């Protein structure tokens, strides 16, 4: 199966979100989110990455998982939003 590694950086109102995805076939095998954004509670970031594993590599599936995880874990941010994370992933997938 084809393995792709895609990366994209997105500037939120405050903070840069850098996403790198390893995609096998059409499924996310690994997701890494780095940058200088603010997300609370901090350790939820690693859970977000965990939740993205095995998710279909399309924007709708990713959006569903991210929004659900933000809600379930009560994630709050400062200067960025869940949509910025979605758009960073979209940019990694589609190049825009």
């Amino acid at each position, binding site marked *: 199966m084809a393995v792709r590694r895609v990366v994209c950086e997105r500037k939120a109102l405050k903070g840069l979100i*850098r996403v790198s995805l390893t995609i096998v076939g059409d499924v996310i095998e690994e997701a890494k989110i780095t940058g200088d*954004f603010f997300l609370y509670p*901090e350790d939820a970031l690693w859970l977000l990455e965990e939740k993205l594993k095995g998710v279909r590599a399309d924007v709708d599936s990713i959006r569903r998982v991210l929004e659900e995880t933000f809600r379930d874990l009560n994630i709050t941010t400062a200067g960025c939003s869940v949509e910025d994370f979605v758009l960073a992933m979209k940019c990694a997938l589609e190049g825009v």
Partner: protein
Amino acid sequence: MGSRLRVLLFETPEDPYMNLSFEEAFLIARERGWIEDDVLRIWRNANAVIIGYFQVAEEEVNLIETRKIGASIVRRFTGGGAVYHDLGNLNYAIAVKRRDVKGGVDFLYNFLLKGALNALRNLGASPKLENINDIVANDRKVSGTAGTIRGDTYFLHGCLLVKTDLAKLSSLLRVSKVKLIDKRISSVKYRVANLCDVLERDISYKELVEALIRGYEELLGAEAYFDMPSSDELKLARALYKAKYTTPEWNLLRLTSASFKIKIEEHLAKS
């Protein structure tokens, strides 16, 4: 008044790993109630690049330049971006315990940050809060801040450029292309200035410390007193130092704090 503010000037400028270990130790001490009063710490590093919790050093820092000038790279436990610390930069950190706070993150940047704004006003500047949590004076960023919440304890720390070597700073920190294109951000974030240049005068360490203490006394309605780290705080700082802050795993990989917990406990048990 009534409440008291414990002030710590404890610092290890030549050992930034200990400085960051102690930063986490005194927060934990306040959170666990080992310390009865809210705490303000003021401290410096001599030559270090401090990166945010979610960053990867090689993406943010010019590693060749860092090695050349012998600066250490240390990760902190709060989010946000990489900063350069030399003795011309003064760090402040405040930890308060509050049971009745609503809107947690807001309390960090719209309330706790005000102590630093008061301090700058006390020194004669006209500081403004911009871009969520940057402190700007004369349209230049003089202080960046980052905060976290642990249970009912609210923590904010910031670095204040007083007389930092800005050429060195910009040679060490990499700025992403996306950020440079984004005028809205680059206009604030990457136009930094030293407070000495903003005020057009020298400012002593003593004057800065007094201004910060007064700034936080005013904000919290508390009376400040100087204190030394407790033996429990130092013991915890040493465990954090050995098990976390001096390890390449913490500083260079981007691992969760939780993965260091067991090792820290082991070091504490041994000490």
